[in-house]
């Protein structure tokens, strides 16, 4: 299995070597753009659009977990915040705002006016801001929250950090869920509609146009919007990885003390990782809120954080292309693979235990191939470092590494 993978990888490498990298990426991009014409307009295209959003989230979490080595188990909090931002700024959630006339900034006709029975047009209440503005507002707000949630965890390491982020990931959706009558008993504004969630949510229109870009019958433009967001995310990720900040993240991941003594500012480096990682969670969250046409607290469960984490681990922590492969693989498995398994005579419906299947993958991957399918070279070295040392220290026993606090 692994030798097959290795030969496949060498072939892949020689193929990429013959083409200059920009050309290779351009080819991939053109294929991705033309994909909707292959996929048709049915469920495969819908699945692809969801997958693209998951790719953004996985790349965002990869900054925190893969680059900076901070295990974040509460990434769903940023998905929730991003989704609620579009829920607030692109729906009728606040009907009383601006005297019931609503606020409309570059919104589509459908989000601006409604036809009344007597033939006149009336303004739709609530805040309606153009999608392309809201996604960046969502990024900014989640980045701030990334810093706020990250700041108290700076002194924690390893598993304590993971549990604190998990707790944040559980608290944030609970606060949204319970803020149906003001926040903490202050005021009476309904922020979330409780378990019903916010629906409908405005869909996408270009800032210079009053028409929606896609409809349920023609999802292609939604796909291209998501693809554009993915390309933006990949671009930012690649530039960050090769930047001074990116090298600082990797240094912190490998050895915090050494990094600090070489002049890396730990606080700033970690907070940037949280902020940027969170921002992409909000970016994708806002898109999903709009695309799914509902923002509901049921979507924001711990399992989702682990779902995104599995994408990174299966794909290869720290490697952008590996993470993308992991995200596509898991998302498609979730959509198509598990229902297929249903035809096997196993006596239960595998879609109901999808999280169990992801858990199984996590376990198998971590035990057999912790570096993921497409590992980043550096990360692979780190993960296998213990094994060679363990062999050297065989006389003392294989416990020598267990107690070392290593990131």
């Amino acid at each position, binding site marked *: 299995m692994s030798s097959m993978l290795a030969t496949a990888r060498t072939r892949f490498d020689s193929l990429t070597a013959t083409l200059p990298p920009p050309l290779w990426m351009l080819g991939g991009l053109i294929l991705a753009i033309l994909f909707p014409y292959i996929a048709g307009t049915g469920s495969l295209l819908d699945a692809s659009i969801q997958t693209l959003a998951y790719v953004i989230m996985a790349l965002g979490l990869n900054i925190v977990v893969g680059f900076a080595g901070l295990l974040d188990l509460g990434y769903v909090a940023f998905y929730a915040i991003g989704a609620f931002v579009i829920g607030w700024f692109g729906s009728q959630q606040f009907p009383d705002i601006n005297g019931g006339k609503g606020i409309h900034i570059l919104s589509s006709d459908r989000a601006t006016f409604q036809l009344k029975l007597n033939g006149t047009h009336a303004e739709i209440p609530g805040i309606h801001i153009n999608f392309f503005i809201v996604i960046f507002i969502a990024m900014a707000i989640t980045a701030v929250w990334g810093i706020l949630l990250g700041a108290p965890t700076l002194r*924690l390491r390893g*598993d304590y950090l*993971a549990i604190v982020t998990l*707790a944040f990931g559980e*608290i944030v959706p609970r606060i949204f869920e319970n803020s149906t009558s003001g926040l903490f008993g202050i005021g009476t504004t309904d922020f979330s509609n409780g378990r019903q969630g916010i629906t409908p949510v405005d869909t996408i229109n270009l800032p210079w146009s009053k028409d929606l870009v896609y409809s349920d019958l023609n999802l292609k433009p939604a796909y291209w919007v998501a693809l554009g967001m993915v390309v933006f995310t990949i671009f930012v990720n690649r530039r960050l990885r090769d930047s001074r900040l990116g090298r600082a993240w990797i240094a912190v991941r490998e050895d915090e003390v050494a990094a600090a003594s070489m002049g890396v500012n730990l606080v700033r480096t970690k907070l940037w990782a949280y902020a940027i990682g969170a921002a992409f969670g909000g970016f994708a969250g806002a898109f999903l809120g709009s695309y799914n046409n509902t923002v509901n607290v049921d979507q924001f469960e711990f399992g989702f954080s682990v779902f995104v984490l599995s994408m990174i681990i299966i794909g290869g922590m720290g490697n952008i292309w590996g993470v993308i492969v992991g995200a596509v693989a898991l998302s498609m498995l979730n959509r198509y693979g598990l229902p297929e398994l249903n035809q096997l005579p196993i006596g239960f419906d595998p879609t109901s235990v999808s999280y*169990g299947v992801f*858990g199984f993958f996590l*376990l198998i991957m*971590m035990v057999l191939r912790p570096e993921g399918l497409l590992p980043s070279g550096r990360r692979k070295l780190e993960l296998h470092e213990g094994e060679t040392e363990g062999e050297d220290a065989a006389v003392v026993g294989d416990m020598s590494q267990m107690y070392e606090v290593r990131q």
Partner: protein
Amino acid sequence: MEAASITETASAGPPARKLSDVVNAYALPLLLVLALVAQFAHSPHDTLDDVKTGLSNGTIWALIALGYTLVYGIVELINFAHGEVFMIGSFVSVSLWATFGVDEGTAMPLMIGSIIVVLALAMLASGTLNVLIERVAYRPLRNAPKLAPLITAIGMSFILQNVGLLWRPTPDSAPDLIGSQKDYFTIFNVGIEHSDVFAVVVTVPLLIALLWFVGSTRYGKAMRATAQDPDAARLMGIDVDRTIQLTFLLGGLMAGAAGLIYALYNGTIRFNQGFTAGLIAFTAAVMGGIGNLKGAVIGGLIIGVIQAISDSGDYLGLPLGPQWTPAVVFGVLIMVMVFRPQGLFGEETREG
């Protein structure tokens, strides 16, 4: 002892640091006591009732927390699947009663006998499961970076939770063998229910047995030695692998007992009860100072009381309620981990 040394060296050492140490050590317990006293002044009777519920419910969290604290003490790993081991304990108990045909109508001596037998079997099942988890998910990763076993632990937790989902897809009711809602006796106008008595009667002997085992037997000594320094323990002839297995077994036994008590205490069981219970118990373990057995018990009781007060829906006029309880408990977890990672009574850990 510690307090004495503070007064003696106050003039010699830097006083500001000593003061901050004292504040650090006593601030959180004091804050908790003040919070309770204020609530008591606010509504005395309700608070007493909450404290009663909290303490009896807290015994369940204490039993689960012991599993976390034992395992963390010895391998420095958060056994994330521990909550699911507890859930399986509940499921095994209820299934066994169904198989034996024991329900509310069974004669008293037979019922008590069945509870004891099922308790033993549920403990054994959970204990064995916990040992298996260690073998499959943690032992292969002893040499890996520290986060690797945490990730397999999460994977294991999801697998078990979904096993539970397939086993019983919907919430199931446990037979009300002990008449849990009936009052046993009343003190200060607070009704002590059968379930409260049952929880305490089962838990206390188990706690004493565990403390005795870890504190006074050869095996317990081996566990403590391994926790302190596994390499040195191995050189002294201790079978470290076996000792770690034993630790997981003990943790699993306690979780199985907690599962049975939970089923009878609450009357309903469901496949995802382990997730929340696990996090609550982990909070308790951290609060008591992870690795500290007595601390875990006290932490469990404290968390139980916090939870009961939050559940009852009115804290000093603040409109809480069951829907806020998870957020409150997780908030406490964050506060403790960030501001006092060594726990209320703990010493500095390697983590802190």
